Structure formats: C-alpha cells, structure tokens
C-alpha cells in the first residue's frame, strides 16, 4: 500500500519525469495467482476450491442471462453448497471487463460475446485464457466412463483452440441460412429455392406480388451479409476458400469464386432489397420480417429466440440453405455455414479458475445442455441432447438442415482473430450492397487490408 502512495507522491513531485510517472499508474506486473488446485477426487475431478468465490459474467444478449441463473448455477450450487457464486450480466463485455484484465483481477468465468466482446487473440497472447485440456480430459458430468471431450462436437474443440491448445468453449451450435415464414410461403405458394436461378425467380415473384419486399439484412451491421457472401463463395469454390482467408493467404479474397459471389450479392443489393435496408439494424429488419414487410432474411439460428416477443404466433419460422450457384459448385446443395459459437472462457489469472472449468463441465452435461436448448431455443455442441425434446419450428428447421448437411459444413474464424479486418469487411460489404463499390474493387480493398494485417508485427497471427 505504502509503495503506491509513495509513488504517487513522487509522481506529484516529478511531473516532467515521464518515465518515473509511467511506473506509477501503468499496472504493476501482477503475478498470476497460482491455481491452487484442491485435491482432485472422483466427485471433484477438477479440484475445485470451494472456499473461494466463483465470479460469473454472462453476456446479456439474445440468450439473456436467465439460463445461467436458473440452470447452470443451481447445478453447481447443488454439487458444491459452500461455493459462493457471484452472478453478473452485461451487454458491453469489453467496456466492463477489459479494465479488470488490465488491472490483474479478472473474474473467473466469462461469456465473452456480443458486439463489444474482448479480443480473444490479445487475451490469449497475453496468457489470460485458461487451458481447457483438464476439462476435456475430465470424466463427463453424466457418465464417469466418458471423457468430456468425447461428448461434444469436435469442431467446437478445434474452433476453441489457439495454437493447438483448447482455450475457448463455444457452446452453441449455430447454423446460418435464409429465414422465412412458413405461413407466408404456404399462403403464396412460394417454395424454398435450390438454385440461384430459382432464388432470383422467387424474389421476382415476391416483388411482383406487391405484398412485401423480397430481401433484407441488418444493413447497419453488414456482418450479416458478408457471412452469407462467404458461404456462397465457399459453396462455389470449396471449404478452402474460407480456410485461406483465415490464414491470410496471398490473394485469398480475390479468387474467382469470391468474385462470383460478390457479383451475385451486388446484384441482390441492387435489385431486391427492402427500402431503407442500409440504415436499419438487425432488430429493425427482423421486426419488419415479423410484420410481413419482407419475405427473406439471412441470419443465424438464434433468430427465433431473439424475436420471440415480436413474432406472431402463426409466423412459423423456417430456414433454407443458400442455393447452389452452378452445376459445378464444389459443394452440394444443403451445404451450411455451421459453427460452434457463443464463446465462454475461464481466466487463467483469476482466483479460482478450476471452479470456472467445473462450471463448464456442468454446462456440457446432458441436463445443462438440454435445459439450455429448451429455454433459449438453440442448438448446442453437446451430442445427442435434442432427441426427444419438443422444439419450436425454426429450431427444428435448423436442426433438420444441420442433419441434412452431414459433413458439408464450412466455417471461418478470422472475424474473431482479426477484429480490424472485420471492421474493414463490414464497411466494404455495406458499400458493395448499396452499389458504391464494384465487386472487384470490393475484394481488392479487403485484400489490401488483409495484407496490411499480415505485415503488422503487433498483430498476433493464427493458423487453422
């Protein structure tokens, strides 16, 4: 204590001496608290220290935070009655928690998600994120003869790994596609299209019907459209399109399939968008969809839950995958962008990281995942949980699409890895859709940014 006070006094005395000052207020190097694992046992395989509190931060977004309070925390509390659980929720994760990391007292368990999530790359590079290997090798909550590792989608582990070490638990399995109202489609005799020609014909029909606009997306957040563009490009050119982009390969953005996809989306933007799309956000466009002002909307499978308060009872959410562009597409119809998402992490330098891992183990149990699935209406990465549950129409449609896709799944990771690239692609994609950027210029501009990041030594690089 006296040290910092003395330094403050010295700081006050030596204003011009920047160096002396800098030592005052930049955080002192905090030694990582040793994860003093309590003894492990069959009942406590991760060695949770039940005498220290467990601080939990849930991103209060589309899933809310009730699932943590009502499902997972009680499970842990039942097992460790003495463990104090401090529950918190926020919509602005980085603003709220970034300072805690910088200050050396991060909370144990964080649902680092949403528009204001913290940069995992920077956190991992700084050793702030706990290794999940002990969790994955621990016996599962339900069946001691099975490891946790063997009860979940392997892609979840792969995606949560940084340099081969599992760090992040992506709990929710998300599939992306084009969403529509079954009611509207039935009433008008419209069919989900399988080829791009059918797709444009459908949109022409919708336009002609005069009942609603054909297509919209969250114009203020062009992520929603570049996600789709990349999916279509990967369908044309194969899953390596996304892999090369992730790896910042030279010219990864300017390959022919990307050009085809960008051209198709520029046309989509020019001809079929709902009026005002560019200035509306996801909630506004999704609400317009619910109000039958527009027929088609690209989104992830969280949509149904996010809109539960504004969706008419007979709306009947359903989704279809992006249609095939040509006969010679590298991947067949039904290919999906499917990706474990909704990241959770344990802070390596928190006081009780083992309790955070144990909390994850509870989440990955059949009970934890099953109740979660019912409560927030979404798929999880835990195998075989959905069987026998009563699912809402949109969730059922997404689950069916995922089954139908089989191994034809694609994903990309650069959005989490390179936040700056995401900003640039968002900005450029909005311009592509509103016609201010031609497809070639669009891709060249992004390629330039990707190259700049590749050459920026202060940005940590990742490979997949």
């Amino acid at each position: 204590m006296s040290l910092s006070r003395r330094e403050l006094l010295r700081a006050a005395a030596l204003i011009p001496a920047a160096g002396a000052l800098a030592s005052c207020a930049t955080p002192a190097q905090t030694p990582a608290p040793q994860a003093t694992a309590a003894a492990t046992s069959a009942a406590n395989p991760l060695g949770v220290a039940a005498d220290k509190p467990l601080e939990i931060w849930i991103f209060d977004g589309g899933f809310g935070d009730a699932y943590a309070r009502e499902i997972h925390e009680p499970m842990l509390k039942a097992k460790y009655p003495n463990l104090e659980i401090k529950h918190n929720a926020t919509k602005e994760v980085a603003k709220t928690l970034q300072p805690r990391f910088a200050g050396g007292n991060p909370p144990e368990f964080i649902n680092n998600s949403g528009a204001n999530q913290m940069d995992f790359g920077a956190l991992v590079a700084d050793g702030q994120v706990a290794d999940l290997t002990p969790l994955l090798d621990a016996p599962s909550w339900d069946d001691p003869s099975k490891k946790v590792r063997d009860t979940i989608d392997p892609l979840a582990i792969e995606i949560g790994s940084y340099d081969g070490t599992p760090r992040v638990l992506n709990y929710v399995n998300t599939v992306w596609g084009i969403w529509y109202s079954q009611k509207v489609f039935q009433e008008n005799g419209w069919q989900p299209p399988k080829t791009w020609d059918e797709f444009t014909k459908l949109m022409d029909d919708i336009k002609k019907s005069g009942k609603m606009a054909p297509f919209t997306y969250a114009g203020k957040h062009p992520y929603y459209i570049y996600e789709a563009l990349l999916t279509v490009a990967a369908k044309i050119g194969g899953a390596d399109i996304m892999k090369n982009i992730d790896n910042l390969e030279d010219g990864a953005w300017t390959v022919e399939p990307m050009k085809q996809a960008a051209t198709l989306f520029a046309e989509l933007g020019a001809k079929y968008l709902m009026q005002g799309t560019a200035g509306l956000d996801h909630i506004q466009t999704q609400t317009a969809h619910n109000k039958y002002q527009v027929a088609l909307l690209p989104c992830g499978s969280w949509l149904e839950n996010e809109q539960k308060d504004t969706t008419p009872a007979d709306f009947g959410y359903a989704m279809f995958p992006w249609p095939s562009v040509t006969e010679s597409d590298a991947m067949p119809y039904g290919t999906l962008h499917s990706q474990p998402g909704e990241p959770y992490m344990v802070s390596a330098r928190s006081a009780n990281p083992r309790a955070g891992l144990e909390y994850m183990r509870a989440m990955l149990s059949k009970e934890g995942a099953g109740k979660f699935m019912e409560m927030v209406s979404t798929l999880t990465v835990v195998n075989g949980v959905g069987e026998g549950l009563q699912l809402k129409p949109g969730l059922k449609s997404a689950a069916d699409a995922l089954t139908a896709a089989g191994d034809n799944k694609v994903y990309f990771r650069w959005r989490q890895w390179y936040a700056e690239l995401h900003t640039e692609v968002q900005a450029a994609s909005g311009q592509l859709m509103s016609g201010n950027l031609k497809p070639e210029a669009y891709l060249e501009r992004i390629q330039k940014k990707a190259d700049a990041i590749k050459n920026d030594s202060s940005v940590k690089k990742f490979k997949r």
Partner: protein
Amino acid sequence: MTTTTSPAIATSRKQARRDRRRRLGPLGVLSHVALAFWTVLVIVPILWTFLASFKTEDEIFGDAWSLPATPRWDNFARAWEQAHIGQYMLNSVIVVFFSTFGTMLLGSMAAYVLARYPFRGNRAVYLLFVSGLAFPVYLALTPLFFVVQNMGTLPLIGPFIGLNTHGGLVLVYIAYSLPFTVFFLAAFFRTLPTAVAEAAFVDGASHSRVFFQIMLPMARPGLVSITIFNVIGQWNQYQLPLVLLTSARDKWVLTQGIAEISTAAGYDADWAALFAALTLAILPMLVVYTVFQRQIQSGLTAGALK
C-alpha cells in the same frame, strides 16, 4: 448604461421604437417566420419523442406520425424499474452535487490565490491549470483508469475513491473541471476592486477570512455562472463514468443508463421503453431549465462575455 431617463426621452424612444416597427413591417413578419421555423425545428423532435414514449411497439414501428391509440404509461414503468432510470438519475444528482461543490470550492481557492497573490511559480501553476483546457480527454482515459484503481488501494480512504465508487468519480470530475474553473475565476477575481479587501486587512482580518467573507460574496455573479457551467457539463458527462463506473451497475449515472437502453434495444427490442427513458431524461432537465432559465442564461453568458 443610462440609469435615469427623463420622461421626454422615454417617449421619444418609444416613438422611435414604434416607428421602426412600422417601418419594418414585412421584415418583422419574416423575422417571426424565421424564428418560428427554428422553434419548430427544436421542439418537434423532442415532442415527437415524448409522443413515441406513449406508443406500443407496433405503433413505433408503424407510421412515425401516427398518434398512440391509447397512452401506454407502462412504458414509463418499464423504463423506471427495469431500466433503473430513477436510480441513475439519483446517482447523477448525488455525483454532480458533490463534484460541483468541490469544483467550486477548490477552483475558487486556487483561482483567488493565482489571481491576487504574486509569488514565485504563480505563472507556472496558472499555466499548468490552463493548459488542461486543450487536453483531449480521450488521450488520458486508459492511464486515468489505472490512477483511479491505484487510489482505491490506499489505506482507509481507498474504498471510497477507487473504481466504481461515486467518490472516485467526484474527484475525477473536480480535477477535470478545474482548468476552466480556474481560468475563468482567476480572470474574474482580477477584475474585482481591491479596496474592500485592503480595508479588511487593515482591520486585522486573516487572508482566508477575507477570501470567504469578502471576496467570495463579491465574486457571486462569476461563481453562479461557472457553477451552472459545471453542473451542465458534469451532468452531461458520458465518457468518464463509462470508464470509471463500468462494473457497478447500481452506481451508474443517467447518461450511461440512456446509452445502455439504446444498446439494449438492439437485443430486447423494447423501443417503447427507450423512448420513455429518453422522455424521463429530457423532461426534468427542461423543467428545471425553464424554471431557472433567467439565472442560467445570464449566468452562462456572463461567463463567456467576460
């Protein structure tokens, strides 16, 4: 300024005024049109927000100019309770009360000494304060966070002035309000006559007694105007609480609350409550302002005119 006017001059003045009005006939009408136009421009967005706060979700997403079928008072209940607008407003009042008081006390003390007491280093201290006027606060945010965090580890007083405390925020507000306060009040103190103070010294009054009992009352117009300036500035502050009060939601101030609802509307789609919250944030300010408008206007402008 003329203080006495003979009746004759007064009438001729009235006459002149009337003449001018008559002469300016069409121009007078035009000026009313122009003034009315800006009035509409100012008022309509605010009224429109008030109106929207009585609408349902559906009505808000419908035509912007439609009237609410029935006023939805429950929007306000949601804004007040779920979005804690009441709590945030109270927090703002508490913080701004103490920080303005502290700013005025410390600021006037420093300004007085710097304005009236020549001593070695006077100019340097004065410039140090005034230079703060030109510092963009964005430059200091990150280090400031750590300063406040370190303050929180001091013995005894630490828990009251660290991160996520109103005490810490108050001290930061005071520090960041000092440059303008000192700059302005020092100029003000320089203009005050010295005779009264000198007489008091002759009578054996101490320096601080002269300050509190003679100079401060004399400086009242300046103090009022800079107080108002600080109240408005600190009430509207968004950036500093955003960084310093992040993880204590119950301590948040009003601007944070409003911005939070606007972000929140992105996930929960409770636009009706957003408008209600906006109304709750706007209305009291307008009422307070309208009641005190004369003092506020003359106070603020006296400041800038000096």
